[in-house]
């Protein structure tokens, strides 16, 4: 009995690691299949409405982008949008988190209320803002008129369209940064701050030399999440302007969406999304490396 049971048990033990890693393997395959499919499509000349033109063109779609001014406009607008939204949200989120740092009934209530925009679907938020900024009856148009600004056209003018969509993004996502940084601030060790208070260190010095360095991993985490989301922006810009006026807001996702759903150009749409993936990958790599470096430094200090 024992001699038969032992090999069976040994075989079970040998198989166990594979069995345990099976779910991860399945998830990996689930992720990789659409990715590889997209890579393949990006190398095709493939319009659904012109099936006879379908053919493998290797990097033809990518090469075309290099000389396409519309593509470079998309890259510029996407990066501008990302920089403006993430920058403003970090700044505002940090200020609000600092204001709410001390635990009190009011601060706790305020932090909950400030989270409300985050609970609004961005597409709905953009439609709400579209109404509020309507030049004929929008409440915000009325308010800016009271302030002496006439004929401000919000998302309808190329001069103010980027400002308008950034404003909506900031309204929706600043609470996300705020809550992450607030959690970070409240979890910082109190000893350095107590020591600085005893030594009478000025508040500005405390902020720049103690608070900010200790909070940096949280800031990087929050920035990374927002960065990845902002560069893939769709649900605010498309309902508000469909990428217009002109080509003012034709960011990657809006352009890829139009290429696929309206122009049925599968090859070009997939190539655009692969470039977006490469940019996202590069940016997240930079941030993660920075984050790991900070963690190593923190461990070294400990």
């Amino acid at each position: 009995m024992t001699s038969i049971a032992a090999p069976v048990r040994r075989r079970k033990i040998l198989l166990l690691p594979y069995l345990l890693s099976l779910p991860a393997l399945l998830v990996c395959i689930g992720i990789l299949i659409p990715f590889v499919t997209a890579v393949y499509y990006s190398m095709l000349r493939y319009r659904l409405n012109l099936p006879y033109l379908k053919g493998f063109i290797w990097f033809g779609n990518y090469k075309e982008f290099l000389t396409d001014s519309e593509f470079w406009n998309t890259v510029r607008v996407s990066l501008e949008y990302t920089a403006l939204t993430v920058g403003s949200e970090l700044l505002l989120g940090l200020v609000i988190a600092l204001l709410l740092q001390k635990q009190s009934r009011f601060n706790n209530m305020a932090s909950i209320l400030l989270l409300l925009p985050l609970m609004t679907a961005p597409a709905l938020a953009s439609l709400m803002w579209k109404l509020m900024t309507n030049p004929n009856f929008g409440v915000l148009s009325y308010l800016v008129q009271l302030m002496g600004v006439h004929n401000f056209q919000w998302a309808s003018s190329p001069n103010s369209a980027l400002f308008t969509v950034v404003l909506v993004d900031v309204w929706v996502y600043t609470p996300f940064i705020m809550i992450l940084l607030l959690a970070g601030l409240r979890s910082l060790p109190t000893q350095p701050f107590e020591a600085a208070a005893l030594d009478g260190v000025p508040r500005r010095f405390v902020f720049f030399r103690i608070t900010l360095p200790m909070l940096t991993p949280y800031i990087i985490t929050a920035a990374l999440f927002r960065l990845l989301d902002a560069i893939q922006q769709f649900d605010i810009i498309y309902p508000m302007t469909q990428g217009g006026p002109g080509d003012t807001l034709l960011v990657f996702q809006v352009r890829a969406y139009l290429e696929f759903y309206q122009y049925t150009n599968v090859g070009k749409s997939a190539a655009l999304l692969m470039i977006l993936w490469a940019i996202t990958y590069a940016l997240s790599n930079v941030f993660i490396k920075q984050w790991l470096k900070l963690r190593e430094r923190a461990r070294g200090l400990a």
Partner: protein
Amino acid sequence: MTDKAKDFFAAFKAGKMNRRELMSGAGKLGVTAASANFMLNAAATEALAADFDWMKHKGTKLHLLLNKHPYADAMIADLDNFKKMTGMEVTYDIFPEDVYFDKVAAALSSKSTQYDAFMTGAYQTWEYGPAGWIDDLNAFIKDPAKTNPNYNWDDVLPGLRASTAWNGVPGGALGSADAKQWCIPWGFELNSITYNRKMYDKVGVQPAKNMPDLLEVSAKLTKDAGGPYGIGVRGSRSWATIHPGFLSGYSNYGQRDFTVEGGKLKAAMNTKVSKDYHKMFVKMVQDSGPKNWSTYTWYQVGTDLGAGASATIFDADILGYFMDGGDNKEKGNLGFHAFAANPDAKAPTPNVWIWSLAMNSAGKQKDPTWYFMQWASSTEHDMFGARKMDFVNPVRASVWKDGDFRDRIAKSYAGYLEQFDASSPGAKIYFTAQPLFQEVTTQWAETLQKMVAKQVAVDEGLDQLAASLDKKLKDAGLG
């Protein structure tokens, strides 16, 4: 419904009495107006069922994809009659126009069998047809075993039948002998001027005679009407901005989107005449259009007119029709005017939009689907929609001749019929049929937006647009 009442309405359908006799007799039988409508249509349905086995696909369930539109509302109001006549079940999903065509593209491109038939425009079939997503309906229309003998396809206005048929050759003439019938016309609109009579009287202007006049009248209205702006036209970054008033005026100057030479297309938007027309259109929007024009779709153009926020629209005649009724503030104040943009043109040349029904190629119940489509586009349903609902403009010649329909429109929508009669002889699709329709028109709208925002000069913008489109056509093997 009593048998006596049923027989009474059946006698009317059989032509044994006129409408006055019907209404007087119905009153004597104690039938209310609402019941009379239902009974009349039920009698029409029974008449339709007389010579054809409508019950052949009894028990089948169909699923439709519909746009939120009065045409869909009219069909839904009459749907119980179809269900009763065929024993089929029909369900539907309805989406607003903003997202409707994206939903259609997603369903068709994924070869989904979810929808059997759907609403479409003729332009969209230039993409769906070559992609193999929809069926050529000639196979059904010409098959007497599948089509009710009273269907009378020839009763559908010839221009609309032709406009929904294309041979798939880029630049090929619509309605050619080798064309495939990609969809069935259901209801249509042509483009003209709808104006607010009260505002025009107040300012002391007449509806514009041509494009230069329209610029002047619109500017005067913007200046003197005391709040409303002069003219509403669409401006969103979409194909929908190009096809209504804009293209109707453009065609009236004899301009085309493309020229076709040796089977190849070449962009033709940068001629001298086209540039002059664009300059006028751009100036009109800058001087007298809505402030946020670049976000304007059909809905905004219409609601502004209905709410008294604009004095005029150069858009679909039926949009003016809808705004002149319902709960709109300006109900009853609107006038209709056929419009030839070119001072040298003899008559208007309105581009048309045709809401149509198409069949999903991936669908698994094609014969039952055709039963629904032929019922929904039948004379009986068209007549019901035209008389009782807002199924305007109907696509059948016999409905346009119907006294009840004409009386209703003449009574409630002053000048609408005159506008239609003056506009319709020149009404047709003025686009060149080609599979890059959405891409071309979206880029055209984008260029218009840039011109209105003064990001680019008109001449330069049109040269850039033509060069860009020529490259796209070449890449797609069309240019």
